[in-house]
């Protein structure tokens, strides 16, 4: 939240979006007329909050004492050693993790929810809605609603309700109402449609806490700003611990909030490579959720971005073993960063992610969520080709407790 940490120069990559909320050709405000006045209000309120030291103070205080930030920066020594066994001599970069899975609620999602609920309260809204895929954003939203005493309705695809039962129960324990959405494939995109329908009917009192760096302007910007705590901390911690910046930062991407949170403070560090990892599902030639690799620019859920779609513009269903990555779009800033070439994007399959999941469990005693397991899969490949004195920094954006049933099933284990 502290803008002084990011130098904004005329040619900075960190200056986006423009005043209309566009990142190059992407982003924007593609919402129905009913929502437009509210979106404009939100933007005004966010601009005011950004200038308000009291808002920053409250946000930072909650991040420190409620969320548990700063999260540790951790050198994964045994994972590094394991990779070096298969690497050519002198190869095998050091792998470091930003431990956002240690946050309260177990993922990075809470950073954004703290920021947005403070905005909601500032705007005098008395009811909160949210969509959720894996349930991490739903849990984080339910958590901040409990913390601030606001009623909360979470829309969740019926398919996701089935495969993420522990998180559904958590949300209910926290006092949220969980509404299963049966439309479409009954996953994240359908939950988002239903949340938008609720919002348009309740604009007078309801704040929509969007969980990723997507949706109509100013959401991609404000979610990025709240999540940039990840990258700002990591950058400072790296300089403090090893006296230099990493050679490459790696993060998994569904909508892309943890990735943009890690990348944004590094955008103007030209010697730091950035790598986003999409979900390749069963493979890029089969069903997957990699919007950049397999999609085309289009308009959905309030923004223009890369979307999985057919030649008529009908949205196609994504697939990933990770419910959190199972979305046919991506945040508009990623679409822009890809087109201008500042960030490289790759993908990892369900199988790659499962292998990486198990590797991290065994080598580091950390059970990662399936989302960052995609990032770890890419780290494993990339680190092998890098020199041993180079540094890879990956965001461990969530812990895997929620995924143990999915993983057990994929490994053919009955629990």
């Amino acid at each position: 939240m502290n803008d002084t940490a990011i130098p904004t120069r005329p040619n900075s990559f960190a200056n986006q979006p423009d005043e209309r909320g566009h990142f190059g050709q992407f982003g924007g405000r593609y919402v129905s007329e009913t929502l437009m006045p509210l979106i404009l209000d939100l933007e005004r309120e966010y601009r005011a909050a950004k200038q308000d030291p009291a808002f920053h103070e409250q946000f930072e205080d909650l991040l420190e004492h409620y969320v548990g930030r700063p999260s540790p920066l951790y050198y994964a020594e045994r994972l590094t050693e394991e990779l070096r066994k298969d690497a050519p001599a002198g190869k095998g970069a050091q792998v470091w993790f930003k431990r956002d899975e240690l946050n309260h609620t177990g993922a990075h999602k809470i950073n954004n929810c703290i920021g947005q609920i403070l905005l909601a309260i500032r705007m005098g809204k008395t009811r909160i809605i949210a969509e959720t895929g894996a349930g991490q954003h739903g849990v984080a939203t339910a958590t901040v609603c409990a913390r601030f005493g606001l009623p909360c309705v979470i829309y969740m695809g019926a398919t996701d309700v089935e495969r993420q039962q522990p998180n559904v129960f958590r949300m209910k324990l926290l006092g949220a109402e969980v509404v299963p959405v049966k439309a479409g494939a009954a996953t994240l995109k359908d939950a988002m449609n239903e949340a938008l329908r609720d919002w348009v009917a309740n604009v007078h009192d309801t704040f929509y806490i969007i969980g990723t760096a997507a949706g109509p302007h100013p959401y991609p910007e404000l979610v990025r700003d709240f999540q940039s705590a990840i990258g700002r901390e990591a950058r400072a911690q790296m300089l403090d611990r090893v006296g230099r910046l990493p050679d490459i930062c790696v993060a998994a991407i569904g909508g892309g909030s943890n990735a943009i949170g890690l990348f944004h403070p590094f955008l103007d560090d030209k010697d730091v490579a950035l790598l986003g990892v999409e979900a390749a599902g069963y493979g890029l030639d089969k069903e997957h959720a990699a919007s950049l690799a397999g999609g085309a620019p289009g308009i959905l859920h309030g923004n223009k971005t890369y979307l999985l779609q057919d030649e008529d513009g009908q949205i196609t269903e994504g697939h990933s073993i990770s419910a959190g990555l199972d979305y046919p779009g991506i945040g508009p800033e990623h679409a822009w960063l890809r087109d201008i070439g500042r960030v490289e994007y790759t993908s990892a399959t369900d199988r790659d992610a499962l292998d990486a999941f198990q590797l991290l469990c065994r080598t580091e005693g950390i059970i990662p969520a399936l989302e960052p397991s995609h990032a770890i899969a890419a780290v494993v490949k990339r680190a092998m080709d890098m020199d041993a004195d180079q540094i890879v920094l990956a965001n461990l954006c969530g812990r895997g407790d929620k995924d143990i049933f999915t993983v057990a099933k994929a490994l053919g284990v009955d629990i």
Partner: protein
Amino acid sequence: MSRFEDTFAKPRPALVCFITAGDGDTAANLDALVEGGADVIELGMPFTDPMADGPAIQLANLRALGAGTRTADVLAIARDFRARHPDIPLVLMGYANPMVRRGADWFAREAKAAGVDGVICVDIPPEEDDSLGTALRAEGLAPIRLATPTSDAKRLPAILDGAGGFLYYVSVAGITGLQQAAQASIDDAVARLKAATDLPVCVGFGVRTPEQAGEIARVADGVVVGSALVDLVAKHGHDAPTHIRELTAALADAVHAARETV
């Protein structure tokens, strides 16, 4: 004069009817609307993610897509309608992505060639007009804008700038086909909008019965009915035209006579 101008030049209010393209026997359903007395047709372009629509039109979208309806089919339905009905204004209504997929210029050109008069795009507000509006105006198509209960006086000029055809007043903050607005709030809103524009003002969302339509037509230039008609397609399938004609006739009678009974 354009078809819109001809239609709204008449002293009586207009009945505007919506159905989804590719849902049931669309050509027969459209003919039934015209025979029943509809003055303007809104042809819905099906989309996988109709996030501004209630259950009735959501399901119509799914049925149409499930039946294999493509953008080319929607345009063919429009073209055939125009051949059968040279004078009835025809509006394509839907969401941005299917409209811009092959480029806004392509869409505007094809819609024009099919005999379409105007386009309503739910999720392109005035702020993003250059994504579609510019291309529509270049082809002489009317970009029909929406005003809502949340559109205050400050916002109206932006909504009206570049608008054409008629102004569509969405009478409830919500999704299609569910609750109906209080008549007093509609009266106030229509008076406010008519003071701000020379465009005809049509009112829709939640209008299901001839009684509601007649009440609204006392003040508005047109009344839009959608979900109630779409429900008939869902219920009666290929027998829908008879039922559509019947409901449309009752709606048309109420709307056309609304000013006479004042």
